[in-house]
């Protein structure tokens, strides 16, 4: 036994020495992530790793070309699936394997800060150059945690072939359903509900999800209870009876129905208007008519770039963020991504009727709450709305109150 083992180990050692002679080989896959340290080249050089999801990959690839042309620092833009980018970042940043920058929506800030994976960004005086909603979206505990670059919200989209005038109240809109249309309006739901698309109507009853304090930031006090909430809950039944909401109509179905001309109105965001225009529809974008007396205020979603707290290139990353916080780059991002820029100066330069319509609809809107308590709200919220819409509850107001109790118990 010993002789063969000796033989094998000698052969093994020989091979080992041969292997150790060369360096550890790289991946067999095509592109390994390039090294991230700055070099001693005369101009600034280095690489920043940015995670984006598939909706932004093109925009940021284009942006990286501009950035490297201007500064010599390259961006390694890595595409991650949109559902994974948040949990992966939180899980990977502490191991050191995370990116330097993450591009995403503002309502992730609460989660990121709670997990200690992002660091504050100091823009100095430039903070005032952004729209208030944009900056507020990325503020947490008095500090700014990312650089916003675009804002978006939902609004009422009208198919001008089926309707040319929009009444001032929601009741009138439902009543004005043309004969050839199957639905007065399309508001996507799905079997788990979609509170986001119903929010403009909810706020028109004066029932925001959380109350805000005088600085405009959210408190952890639920604002959709009481009479306002009850009124909205009861109105859901009216809407369901009129065919305005339906659990069978999810996103897919709503979009298809609007394309097929089954309804003159749909509540949706700028992500689909492009498809509508491409399909040849003549559309207008308007604020959602009020149902409860107050102006309708949809959630404003702010897109921006976060800085990882574990980044080893924080200096370079901050230089990049500084560069993004200029009107030129904000406008460029608008050209690449098609959303209203977050910086006022750049937003003023945008000449797009449809985006202007969205802007008007969102003028009263507040950013989606990024406080940790918000995470406990979504599933109860949508679920209760669907239960009311389906007629599974006898007393909508009571079900609404139960929902609020459950949410508060989950804090």
């Amino acid at each position, binding site marked *: 036994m010993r002789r063969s083992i000796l033989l094998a180990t000698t052969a093994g050692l020989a091979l080992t020495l041969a292997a150790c002679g060369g360096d*550890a*080989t*790289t*991946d*067999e*896959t*095509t*592109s*390994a992530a390039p090294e991230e340290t700055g070099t001693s080249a005369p101009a600034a050089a280095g690489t920043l790793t940015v995670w984006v*999801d*598939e*909706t932004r990959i093109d925009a940021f690839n284009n942006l990286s070309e501009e950035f490297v042309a201007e500064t010599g620092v390259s961006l390694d833009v*890595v*595409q*991650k*699936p*949109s*559902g*994974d980018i948040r949990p992966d970042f939180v*899980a*990977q940043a502490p*191991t050191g*394997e995370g990116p330097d920058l993450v591009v995403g929506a503002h309502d992730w800030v609460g989660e990121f800060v709670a997990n200690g994976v992002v660091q504050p960004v100091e823009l100095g005086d430039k903070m005032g150059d952004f729209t208030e909603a944009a900056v507020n979206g990325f503020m947490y505990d008095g500090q700014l945690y990312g650089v916003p670059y675009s804002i978006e919200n939902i609004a009422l989209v009208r198919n001008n072939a089926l309707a040319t005038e929009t009444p001032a109240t929601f009741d009138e809109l439902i009543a004005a359903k043309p004969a050839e249309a199957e639905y007065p309006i399309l508001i996507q739901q799905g079997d788990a509900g979609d509170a986001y698309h119903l929010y403009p109507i909810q706020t028109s009853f004066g029932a925001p999800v959380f109350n805000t304090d005088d600085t405009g930031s959210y408190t952890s006090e639920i604002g959709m209870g009481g009479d306002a909430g009850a009124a909205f809950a009861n109105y859901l039944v009216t809407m369901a009876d009129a065919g305005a909401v339906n659990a069978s109509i999810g*996103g*897919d*179905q709503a*979009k*298809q*129905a609007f*394309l*097929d001309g089954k309804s003159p109105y749909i509540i949706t*965001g700028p*992500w*689909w208007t492009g*498809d509508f225009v*491409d*399909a040849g529809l003549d559309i207008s974008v308007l604020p959602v008519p009020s149902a409860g007396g107050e102006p309708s205020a949809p959630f404003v979603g702010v897109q921006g770039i976060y800085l990882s707290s574990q980044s080893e290139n924080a200096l370079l990353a901050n230089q990049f963020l500084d560069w993004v916080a200029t009107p030129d780059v904000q406008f460029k991002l608008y050209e690449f991504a098609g959303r209203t820029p977050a910086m006022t100066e750049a937003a003023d330069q945008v000449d797009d009727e449809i985006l202007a319509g969205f802007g008007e609809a969102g003028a009263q809107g507040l950013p989606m709450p990024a406080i940790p308590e918000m995470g406990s709200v979504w599933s109860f919220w949508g679920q209760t709305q669907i239960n009311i819409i389906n007629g599974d509850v006898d007393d909508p107001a009571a079900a609404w109150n139960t929902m609020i109790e459950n949410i508060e118990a989950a804090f």
Partner: protein
Amino acid sequence: MATKTPKVQAPVLEGANDVRLKGGRWWGKVGWKHVLAVFIIAYAIFPLLYVLSASLSPGGTLTGSARLFSEISLVNYSELMDGRFPKWMLNSLVVSSASAIGTVVMGAAAAYAFSRFRFSGRRGGLTALLIIQMFPQMLAFVAIFLLLLTLGDVFPQLGIGSHLALIAVYLGGALGANTFLMYGFFNTIPRDLDEAAKIDGATHAQIFWGMIMRLVTPILAVVGLLSFVSTYGEFILARIVLNRPDTYTLAVGLYVWASDERNAPWSLFAAGAVIAAIPIIALFIYLQKYIVAGLTAGSVKG
């Protein structure tokens, strides 16, 4: 309902039979089976027609409307070929084939050991293997990620982003239900054959590689196919291991397309799914002759 097995159960070639059934007897014995097959095919294919229909329509949603085949165009397929899809297909074929081969070899070896040798822990071992595979994989992603990070520091080829690493993860599941399937089949091969070979001077390895493996080709083909299919459609673990779109397998690529909340490219996705199914069907058709060959009378009787 009576199941029919023919009187002569020694199938030699497909369909060849001395008795030619005609007319009413044919219908009574065989014809109704064809009718049944049509119904079963309709049942199996129906949702897939949906996918096919979506793949042939230039734009829109997957299931937004109930109309099938409202528009026919091949634009989605050509668009697929321009993107990363062919690369994904190649990646999938490589990863799944390697996993399948590894699973078959290691599984057959283990099944041979369990079937032919008596050692302590044999019975318990087989049960343990089956039970270990029942661990909910839902949370594996955190552990696998950390494991691959650690391994990747030592062996870069086994780290995050590498196909070899993914194959290794899949091979972790090689000993499991598939082994048991093969074990059952191995048990039906009489020990007399082993004894005869040993008397002729063969070693256990020679018996295994030379004789047994040839006799068990049907089950090897089945397990190979099952393993191929399960790794082909697996995206939960693959998503963690493969972090760059170029390295994605088909399952991950399609999943990423489908998980876009707002603008999922459903037509592309449908076209991709149709093309992705082709290798599996082709593989199955190729392996069919092994799966159904069965043991010939000669080898059984020694």
